[in-house]
Structure formats: C-alpha cells, structure tokens
C-alpha cells in the first residue's frame, strides 16, 4: 500500500466510523481533475475572495459606518481640526492607529481589485473555450451574476470610507439614479433618505457591503463550485481525452496540495503587494465635502469602462413633455452595460440557436475552432477595452501631452470602427489557423527538408504528425457545424414555409457559412500515410521521429 493510499484509507475509515460517509469521501477524494494553467484562474478569484472575507472581518472591528460629523484629532497631523464623518475618521484610525490596520486595509483593497480581475479573466477563458455549452449554461449564468455582484460589492467598498474620492463616486452613482426617467428622483430620495449625501447612506451601504452582497456571493459561489463538482471539469482535447472521461490527477493528494499551496501563493503575493504599494491613500484625498473634487477622480478599474463610456458619449439630452431625458448618462451608465450583461448572460443560448446542437460538451474548444465565437469575443473585448481606456483619458492626456478632446474623439471613432474590424481579423485568423491544422492532418507537418526531383522540381518533404498532435487536431470535428439550411420558401404542396426557425437559419449561416471542414478519418489516414512515404524517400531509417 502506498503512502497516499494509506492516508486516504485512514482518513476515510476515521470519518466512516463516525459519520458513515466514508464511502462517499473515498470516492470523492479520488475524483479526477484535468490539469491546465488556465483552470486555475477561477481559483485565484476564489482565494482573493476568501482573503477579502478574512481581512474584511478585521476591518469591521474598527470601522464605524456613521455619517455623524466629528472634528478630527488624531495622529495624522495634516487633518487635525478638520470636520469629517465618523466613517472617514474611523478609516483614518484603522490606517494610522490600529496595529496592522493599514496593511490589512491595503490587503483588503488589493485583494478586491484582484478578485474582479481574476473573475474577468476566468470568464474570458470559459467563453473562448466554449465551456459554457450544455450542460454548463446555468453555471455560466451564475458566473455572470457573480461578476455583476463582485463589481457592485467592490463599488460599495470603495464608497464606504467617505473620503473625497468615494464621495465623488457616490455623487456620480446618484447622478445615474437621477437619470432614470420618471422615477429617478424618487429612487434617489429613497436610497439616500432625502437629499444627497444625507446621513443614511453609508450605514445602509455598510449592511449591503458586509452582509447582503457577501452572503449572496457565498451562496452563488457554493452553487458554482457544486455544479463544477457535479458536472465534472471540462478538459482540452488531447490523447485519450473524450467527451465521456476526465484525464488528470486525483483530488487527493495532487489537487489538495496544489490548491492548498496556491492559496498561500495568492495570499503571499497580495500581501507583498499590499506591503509595498499604497492603495487608496484616503488621508491625502481628505474627507468628502460636496463642493470639493480632485483632478483625476477615477473609480476602481472594474467601473473604469462605465466611467469611460460616460466620458465618450456626447452631451445628448431631449426634453419630453417637460421632462429631461439625459441620454448622456442613461446610454453609457444604464443602457450600454444593460445590453452588454444581457448579451453575456444569454450567449450560451444564442450560440445554441446557431448550432442547433443539443449534445453535452465536456471537451473544450480550441478558440480557433470556433472562429465566429472567438471573433465576437474579441470584438466585445475591444469595445470594452476602448471604453476602459477612455476612463483614464485625462491621465493619458497628461502623461503623453495630448489633447483630451482629441483622445475623446479618437475613441468615439474607434468604438464604431475597431470592434467590427477586430471581428473580421480575428475570424479570418482563426480560419487561417484551422486551414493550417487541416493541412497538417491531410499532408503531414513540414520538415524543412527540400527534395529535388529528377525533373529538377523542388519539393518540401512532409512527415506524419505525432499521435498527441493528431488527437488535438482531430478534435476540430467536435466544434464543426454545417450551417442550417433554409427550408424551401414554398414546399411541394404549395404551403409557405413557417416564419419560425428563420432566425436560427440566419444565425447559423452567420456563424458557420465560412467554415473550414475538418477532414475525415480516411482522408487523414491517407494523408499521414503519404507523408510517411514522403519521409521514407529522404530518411529511410525514420531518423526523424514524428514530433511537433
């Protein structure tokens, strides 16, 4: 019996003797997970979230979420005698008078920034590899929900210390609420308990930040992980990997060690960053006073794209029946993000409509094998990044001595021109890569050996691809769909085709009309055989082992 087996046996027996769950444990401790670096992005998000929870608990011990006004008299001299709220005062106290307070505050804030960043990158991985397909659509939607809540949670935290920056952010948030037609001013009054800023909002936001959203986040996170457990983790195509198995390592001991170790790596790196780099120096911003503002007032990065959208949308307003409709705020702050998040959540069904596929998928797509999806993703990402850049337009103007007006206009134009261009380029690139893969299967890989024929002609010698490469390349069949054909407009009995289903046909043609058809087994066998023969003519001993 090996050491690990003995360890599993002892543990399961101990648990079994007391709870009767030994069998379940034994099975699940040996549950297999596939190995790939990109599968750890979600783990980074999970661990930074745990770090936020731990540091957050410490901060609640000292933070006082009250908007009652006090006069500061503490250890940060440049603010002595200044009027401020207790929220801001207690944040100063955490930063300057509580042991380890500033470090914990900085870990909390850096971990929050990392949390949303890791969630985003994890989501991109899931999107571009098609991991959201059946049976994982629900988990995708949970993921979109987690992302939205993470952003809200971050913004709530940013707003709590009641420093100049958080107050400015809240003022903008209130402006967005006011821009909602008809009910805006009522909703604002309701949220702030009267006029902005009032004295109710920070205590309310505090409950939301430390109880409501983290509670929902924890619940959804549990569901997210349980579903991964139940549906098993997806894997990239490779030798021996099919839609019906999982090739990898067992949870115990491999992933217990890897994941446990990774938690400490994530905590270590965040703590190191927190110890070395200032984040949100609230003592420099000063307390929030509605008539003050600082140049370069920016939100944390995950709200940056919305701020950027507000900065690029022209100053459009219409007056309707005496009511002002502020498109300049409504469009960038509510309509555009509303559309983007809805499309994101619905994407699995949009694509399923185009493929007409009802099968389960446990094998991931290589992004090139889904050219239209990859193109659409790149397009969305371009749109997002442009707005993100726009959110820092003043700092870019300052750093490069450019005109902020020119930057704004450039981004306006790029927002319309660049995303479609990126879509076309990405899709063409994917199709090109697919053609190269197809060539490898049909003609073998290029060896770089040039052969001169008796006729004087020069040819490059090809060699068969390795079985591992072949397994990877053949998987393109899993991602291949023929476009759905439109039914004849009028059938044999003279009945017009129903309108239903036309959208699917259109969508399917948009997705797959330009597809690269993967070769059949016979074609591949013939091609590889040919390549082997080809190689034999120059290296009869087969010195070149088929690699690559």
């Amino acid at each position, binding site marked *: 019996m090996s050491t690990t087996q003995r360890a599993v046996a002892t543990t399961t027996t101990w648990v079994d003797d007391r709870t009767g769950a030994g069998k379940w444990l034994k099975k699940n401790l040996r549950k297999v997970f596939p*190995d790939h*670096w*990109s599968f*750890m*992005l979600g783990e*980074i998000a999970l661990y930074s979230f745990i770090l936020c929870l731990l540091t957050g608990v410490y901060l609640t011990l000292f933070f006082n979420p009250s908007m009652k006004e006090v006069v500061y008299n503490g250890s940060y*001299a*440049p*603010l*002595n*005698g*200044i009027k401020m709220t207790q929220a801001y005062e207690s944040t100063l106290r955490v930063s*300057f008078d509580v042991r380890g307070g*500033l470090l914990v505050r*900085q870990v909390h804030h*850096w971990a929050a*920034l*990392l949390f949303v*960043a*890791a969630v985003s*990158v994890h989501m991109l991985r899931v999107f571009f590899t098609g991991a959201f397909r059946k049976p994982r659509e629900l988990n995708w939607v949970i993921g979109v929900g987690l992302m939205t809540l993470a952003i809200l949670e971050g913004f709530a935290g940013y707003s709590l210390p009641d420093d*100049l920056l958080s107050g400015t952010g809240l003022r903008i948030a209130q402006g967005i609420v006011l821009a909602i037609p008809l009910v805006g001013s009522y909703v604002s009054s309701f949220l702030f308990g009267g006029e902005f800023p009032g004295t109710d909002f920070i205590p309310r936001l505090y409950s939301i930040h430390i109880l409501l959203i983290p509670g929902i986040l924890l619940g959804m996170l549990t569901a997210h992980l349980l579903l991964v457990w139940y549906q098993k983790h997806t894997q990239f195509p490779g030798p021996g990997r099919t839609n019906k198995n999982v090739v990898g390592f067992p949870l115990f001991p491999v992933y217990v060690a*890897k994941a446990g*170790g*990774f938690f400490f790596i*994530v905590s270590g*790196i*965040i703590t190191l*960053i927190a110890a*070395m*780099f*200032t*984040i*949100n*120096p609230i*003592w*420099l*911003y*000063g307390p929030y006073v509605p008539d*003050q*503002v*600082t*140049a*370069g007032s*920016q*939100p*944390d*990065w995950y709200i*940056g794209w919305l701020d950027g959208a507000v900065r690029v949308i022209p100053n459009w307003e219409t007056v309707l029946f005496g009511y002002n409709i502020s498109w300049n705020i409504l469009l960038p702050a509510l309509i555009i993000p509303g559309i983007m998040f809805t499309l994101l959540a619905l994407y699995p069904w949009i694509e399923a409509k185009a493929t007409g596929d009802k099968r389960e998928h446990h094998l991931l797509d290589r992004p090139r094998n889904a050219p239209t999806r990859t193109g659409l993703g790149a397009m969305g990402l371009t749109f997002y990044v442009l707005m993100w850049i726009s*959110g820092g*337009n*003043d*700092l870019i*103007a*300052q750093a490069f*001595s*450019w*005109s*902020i*007006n020119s930057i704004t206009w450039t981004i306006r134009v790029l927002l319309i021109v660049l995303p479609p261009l990126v879509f076309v380029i990405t899709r063409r690139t994917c199709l090109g890569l697919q053609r190269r893969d197809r060539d490898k299967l049909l003609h073998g890989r290029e060896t770089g050996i040039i052969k001169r024929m008796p006729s004087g002609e020069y040819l490059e010698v090809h060699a068969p691809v390795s079985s591992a490469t072949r397994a990877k390349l053949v998987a393109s069949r899993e991602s291949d769909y023929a476009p759905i054909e439109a039914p004849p407009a009028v059938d044999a009995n003279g009945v017009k085709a129903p309108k239903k289903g036309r959208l699917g046909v259109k969508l399917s043609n948009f997705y797959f009309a330009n597809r690269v058809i993967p070769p059949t087994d016979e074609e591949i066998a013939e091609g590889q055989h040919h390549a082997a023969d080809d190689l034999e003519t120059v290296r009869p001993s087969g010195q070149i082992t088929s690699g690559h």
Partner: protein
Amino acid sequence: MSSESPRRRRPTAALALVTVGLILMGGLYAAAGSLASPAQAETSEASPALLEEGSVLYKEGCSSCHGLNLEGVPADSVGKGNPKQNGPSLIGVGAAAVDFQVSTGRMPVGATGQQVVAGRSSYNEEEVAALAAYVASFAPGPAIPSEEDLDTTDASLAEGGELFRTNCAQCHNFAAQGGALSNGTYAPAIDPSRPDHIWEAMLTGPQSMPVFNDTTINPDEKKAIIKYIQNINAAPSPGGAPLGTVGPVSEGLLIWTVGLGALIACSVWLGAKAK
C-alpha cells in the same frame, strides 16, 4: 578652442557686447522716457540703475511680442494670424507676474503650443529682478512676495489642506501632481514648485489659472496652502510606494500587470507537467 583669442571666443562675449550696446541705447531711451512721464516713477521704488538694466533686457528679450512700451502686440503682426502668438499688454501685470513667468522659464516663449511650458530660465536672478522692476515701473500691480510673506512657520497645515482641496485640487490633483485641462492645456504638477512661484501664480493667474487675489484667499491662507503643498513632498508615504499618487488608474494597472501577471506565471508553473 583656439588659443589665440580666448576672450573673444567666450560664448558670453557676444552677449556682453550686445548688452553693452543695448544698455547705452536703452539707457538713453529710458532716461528720455522717464523724463517724459514722471508719473511712472512713483509706481516703483527701484533704483534707476536696476530700471535701466531692466529696460535693456526688456527691449532685447520681450519687446518683440509685448511691444516697446508694454502695450502688447496684436496677433497678426507677430504670428501671421495665429491668435496664440500675440503678446498681451504687460501694463499693470506687476512684478509678481514677471518674476513667475521669467524665472520658471515660461517667458520668453521657446515654442508656441497649446500652453507655454516651464523650463530653465534664460535669465539669472538679478536680471529677473531688473525686468520685474522695469515692468512694475509702468503701472502698479501684484508685487513679488517678501521673505516675510513666505514664512509659513505659523501657518496651519490642516487649513492649508482644506483650502487646497477646495481651490486647487480640482485642476492640480489631490496630491499636487497636476491634471489635464481641455484641448491640450493642463495644470502642471506643483509639488516641486518654489513657494514664491506658488504665491505669484495664485496672485496673477498665469495661462488657464484663475486669479486668487488677496480678497479671495488672504495672505495667511496663501501661506497655509504653500505649507500644505510643500508637506506633500516632505511627508513619508505610510502605505508604501505611492504609484504616482494619481488615483485608482495606476492601482488598476499594477494589479493587472504585476499582480495578475505574477499569479498567472505561478499557475503556469503549477500546471506544467512534471518532468
């Protein structure tokens, strides 16, 4: 360098020659001018010698844009229709404006652009004083602050911070790092600025900056603001490297590059096949 005539070869020789010539010409002119209008003499207590030097320097370095009598030059006669190249009238701008513009190297203008940039001053302290006295001799205007004016010992740091955040931070940023304004203009970083320059800038409102005269912000408040700005640079950064103190943008950049970058590198390391 040739050894035959080292004195004539000195780079300052030409300047000295021109200066001597100009002092002669300018001195005569200034004498004639002061005789013609004795009222101007009352506005300045500077010595005639200083005024003379100032007059020479002014005619040499400033008059082509600001006019021989400080009256200013309309756009089309200087910049061929470019409104940014006109020289405004300097009558009544005061010694403070001259001292600020010339000793921060903004004037004389090196190159035209959206905004006149600061740089190394073309004049030494004495020459700046002469120019300032000369310009101030035409009409009264804001004076250069005395050492007493700039003594911030009794000023309140906290009050300075409050005033800074109310009046300055909106353009110059909460930590005096500067910020962008419209159409390529900007509010420069002022944490390395000299106290007298900050004082003068508030008094005279150079370029896009509004004027904060003594009724808007009184001299004691000015001292407090200067004390606060100087404290920003002097105070240690308790949270670690300040990342430019420009707000969340540099923080976001750091977490995406250094933070996530390092962690993805670790993921790749952990996900690599054992060899």
